């Protein structure tokens, strides 16, 4: 009897708190809080060390880079006061810095912070390390300019200075960051792992000027506070958005589109060409070392069917042979003739010519990203129709990332990427990325790109690289996919971007 009474009293007390919590939620909204449901907890807030999407999404509100990307994914000034002055030999970049910018701790931003931050970035970040190999010197030129001298021309320099190369106060720099202080429109107030990351408006924020274009242009911290809440379950993100608990829910399943649209409380948001799916081939060991067999894979696959299986509706994907999507400065049809519609007969002929002996093709994919798995299933069917014997290996993502580092373990793995600001930062182009794409014609094409100093010359060189990629076939581009997220009714000013950002966004009233 006593136990039952206790249970009833506890339940009654809990039910009584519901009105209290709802009243508080309303009060928070009036004070301008944006609650953002993310796909999970970021492993760290040190974006130099771990430049993954979730870290970049949160960190871009706290930290800023010298340059950032506009709508065409070209680099434009952010903490830099303008584009760099380039010496005639294309080896020396003088970058002017904005004045009057302060960090969240009140210290002034100057050239010393830039050199100290970029040195840390070149020591620990994978892209930074590539740059470090090219940089001869990095020096301050007074308080408001820095000079970067290169050993050889390096066309992607500004693109690499637009992502993860964030500027920290020189006094706070350490091997392991313990304080997360930046110049961004929001400052970190509290992080409770797996519960929330609380950012508050930085009242002394000095915004860059200019028209808003992707991440470029004026930034205004309208909401007093942004809370990033990790919600790993996609269905819970959907329901939390519809119930009004979240103002924005990231990465929703495409199957939730109609439910969000029909809820009357929120609307689905599509960000076109959020990324591209690819099947990366092993050029170092195994079956696909033979170029003819990689060409057979190219000929066998049907990108439309694979994308349709993965995303179920053409509102959520597009099929395009150009590695960069339409609208991007780098979009080109150079070399895309090999991007076919699935011709098993032509593939079978190539297999015969290559003397394929029936060795199983190990196709590795993961269910952590469901679309990877579905692409794998359709690919298997097409490859088998062409005459390949396919061993589809479904593993979790952590296993896949470990196995793909060993060239003995696989022939193809399925992955996806975003569209980087510079074409040469595509992983596959790197010699050491799993797949180990090393070829003389690639090296020549990339060298021509690195040597280019004007946009036109870079574009022409990129066309050469894309043509070579289709001929060498280190990967098979499957297609571009759109990202679906959800925005609560009443939230205004949100513009979809690859890493969703919430400056310039007004919370519900």
């Amino acid at each position, binding site marked *: 009897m006593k136990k039952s009474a206790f249970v009833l009293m506890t339940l009654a007390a809990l039910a009584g*708190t519901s009105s209290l919590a709802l009243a508080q939620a309303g009060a928070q909204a009036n004070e301008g809080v944006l609650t953002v449901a993310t796909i999970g907890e970021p492993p760290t807030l040190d974006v130099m060390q771990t430049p993954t999407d979730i870290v970049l999404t949160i960190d871009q509100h706290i930290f800023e880079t010298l340059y950032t990307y506009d709508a065409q994914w070209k680099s434009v000034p952010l903490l830099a006061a303008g584009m760099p002055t380039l010496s005639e030999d294309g080896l020396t970049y003088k970058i002017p810095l904005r004045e009057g910018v302060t960090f969240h701790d009140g210290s002034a931003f100057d050239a010393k912070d830039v050199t100290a931050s970029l040195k840390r970035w070149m020591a620990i970040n994978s892209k930074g390390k590539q740059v470090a190999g090219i940089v001869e010197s990095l020096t301050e030129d007074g308080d408001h300019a820095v000079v970067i001298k290169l050993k050889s021309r390096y066309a992607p320099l500004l693109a690499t200075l637009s992502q993860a190369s964030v500027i920290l106060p020189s006094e706070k720099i350490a091997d392991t960051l313990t304080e997360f202080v930046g110049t961004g429109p929001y400052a970190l107030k509290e992080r409770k*792992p797996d519960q929330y990351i609380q950012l508050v408006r930085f009242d002394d924020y000095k915004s860059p000027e200019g028209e808003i274009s992707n991440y470029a242009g004026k930034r205004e911290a309208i909401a007093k506070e942004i809370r990033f809440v990790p919600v790993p379950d996609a269905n819970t993100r959907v*329901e939390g958005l519809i119930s009004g608990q979240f103002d924005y829910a990231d990465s929703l399943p495409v199957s939730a589109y109609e439910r969000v649209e029909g809820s009357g409380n929120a609307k689905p948001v599509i960000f076109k060409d959020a990324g591209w799916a690819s099947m990366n081939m092993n050029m170092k060991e195994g079956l696909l070392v033979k170029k003819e067999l990689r060409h057979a894979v190219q000929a066998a696959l049907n990108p439309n069917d694979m994308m349709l299986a993965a995303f179920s509706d053409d509102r959520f994907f597009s099929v395009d042979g150009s590695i960069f999507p339409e609208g991007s400065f780098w979009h080109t049809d150079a070399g895309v003739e090999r991007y076919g519609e699935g011709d098993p007969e032509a593939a079978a002929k190539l297999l015969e010519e290559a003397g394929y002996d029936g060795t199983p093709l190990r196709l590795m994919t993961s269910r952590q990203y469901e679309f990877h798995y579905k692409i794998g299933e359709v690919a298997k069917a097409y490859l088998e129709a062409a005459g390949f014997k396919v061993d589809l290996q479904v593993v979790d993502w952590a296993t896949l990332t470990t196995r793909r580092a060993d060239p003995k373990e696989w022939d193809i793995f399925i992955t996806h990427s975003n569209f980087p600001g510079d074409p040469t930062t595509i992983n596959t182009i790197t010699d050491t990325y799993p797949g180990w794409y090393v070829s003389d014609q690639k090296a020549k094409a990339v060298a021509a790109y690195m040597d280019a100093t004007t946009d036109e010359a870079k574009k022409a060189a990129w066309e050469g690289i894309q043509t070579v990629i289709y001929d060498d076939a280190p990967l098979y581009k499957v297609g571009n996919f759109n990202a679906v997220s959800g925005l609560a009714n009443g939230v205004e000013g949100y513009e979809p971007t690859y890493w969703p950002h919430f400056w310039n966004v007004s919370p519900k009233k």
Partner: protein
Amino acid sequence: MARIAQALLKRLGGMAIVLALVVTVVFIIVRVTPGDPAAVMLGSDATPEDIAQLRTRLGLDAPLLMQYGQFVLGILQGDLGQSIFLNQPVTTALAARAEPTFFLTLFSILIAVAIALPVGILSAVRRGTIFDQIVVTLTMVAASVPSFWLGLILIQVFAVGQGWFPASGYGGPGTSFIERLHHLVLPAVALGIVNSALITRFTRAAMLDVLGDDYVRTARAKGAGEARVILKHALKNALIPIITVIGLSVAMLVAGAVVTETVFGLPGVGNLVVSAVLRRDYPVIQGALLVVAAIYVLINFIVDMLYILVDPRVRQ
């Protein structure tokens, strides 16, 4: 008394052996599972050189025997290691997540017992009636329903439809204790209903076993009221299997709230374990599983002690 002390010591020795086995088995399992924390941490852009460097920094390239030795030595000093991802001691990470898991377990078992005991007893007393048949059917259905599915239904009805409870999380900055508990209502109900099924069935079966016994008939013959016969004479004698199943349910809830915590976005121990497995955060996996195993063993120990309290025959 000496016998009880001897049994107690024997039990404690058994517990130590079980925990030592858990420590070793978990250490081996996490390391033979493919997947590298350094690769996961650095993301898809990482080069093999970056991964190798981070492995060295994290001490993951040390010989396995040395890592095992350090792990065991740490445990003996009360140190479960340092989380690779959270950059904080595992004990701190576990302590920060103990509150939601503890209260979720507590409320779930309270709900389960509050449903199961009266329903199970009544079902046994009214054996063969429509009420009994409905209870048997419903408990079968409830036992078959996955708690995450029930959780999603509860979210749709009570969070989205009625707006009475939050759909996810454990409250934002400055949330009071009562508000945090408010976030636990739906997950606790989901887990409580599913667990009530097993306890109801055990209660019903245990009561049916004793209701036909001589001492129950004797109590009735002596003119004891029906409530006294059922609650004092029958229930007391049926308690041992019921306590066993409640104890097992609590132990399973501590370990089994993993999926429910993930669905409801609760920052509890279960959620921590899931994230740690996906990230291959070895120290957290090891530490959390060791703590869960210790709780499991401790609950079984408490259940054994309860037998002594409720059954004089065990004392002898």
